[in-house]
């Protein structure tokens, strides 16, 4: 049993992921309005998806169930 944590350090991983997701989304919007490159936009989406799958959805727990945060 772990006691309630005061500091935000345990949330750092989520904070960092959210920061990059916002940055990429802004880049997407700017790219769309300037370059019109479908390939780049799709690549950026895949990058965002990777962050969500790994950090938010913890896909690695499927093959490594003991791993915790």
């Amino acid at each position, binding site marked *: *049993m*772990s*006691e*309630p*944590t005061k500091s935000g350090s*345990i*949330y750092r*991983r*989520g*904070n960092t*992921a*959210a920061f990059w*997701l*916002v940055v990429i*989304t802004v880049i*997407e*919007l700017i*790219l*769309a*309005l300037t370059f*019109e490159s*479908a390939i780049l*936009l*799709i690549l*950026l*989406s895949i990058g*965002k*998806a990777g962050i*969500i*799958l790994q*950090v*938010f*959805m*913890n*896909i690695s*727990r*499927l093959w490594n*169930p003991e791993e*915790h*945060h």
Partner: protein
Amino acid sequence: MSAVAHDHDHHNPMEPTRSEQVKMNRLGLWVFCLSESFLFFALLGTRFYLWRNPVDGIIRPDLAQIPAFIFTGVLLASSYFMNRAEVAISKDDRTTFNYSMLLTAALGLVFLFGVVLVEWGLATGPELLLGDGAFGAVFYAMTGMHALHVIMGIALILIVWNNGRKGLYTAEDHWAVEACAIFWHYVDLVWVFFYPALYLIGTAIELHH
């Protein structure tokens, strides 16, 4: 006649343990997400199959950018708070868990109303009509199918928040929270692909009404 032998001892000698069941639940949920991906990929495929014309190649309707961008941000923020809630319960931080769950649901509702009221134009008058050929059909199908999942996600979050308030989850065993998080992030994941497909990719075609 009975095809299962009559057996009054209703005790399963091979009952899965709780941790075995959680492992199975987790894989089951991921297979469900995989299954849903076929639906969403089929919708994306439909978008790229239909939203083309001989002159410009891939096209998109010229929809207002700023509201869509804001709502995308709102959904992302809700995903962030969902993650925060899950981390919090795993550290037994009940206060953070409770308000994070509520914030997630609230932001999800903002996104939902954003799509329905602003993007579908129920409040302001639509940019794109249901009957506007392939533009209208694909736009409403994709946002609508996604919104349906948002509704289910919000319901799930509220149920889990309520059960969490009753103290049903512990730092060690909070599968329901994890399941809820995986589903909600999955809904966000889908929007990560839908947002550029609907609003960003292709040559903008001006809409006239």
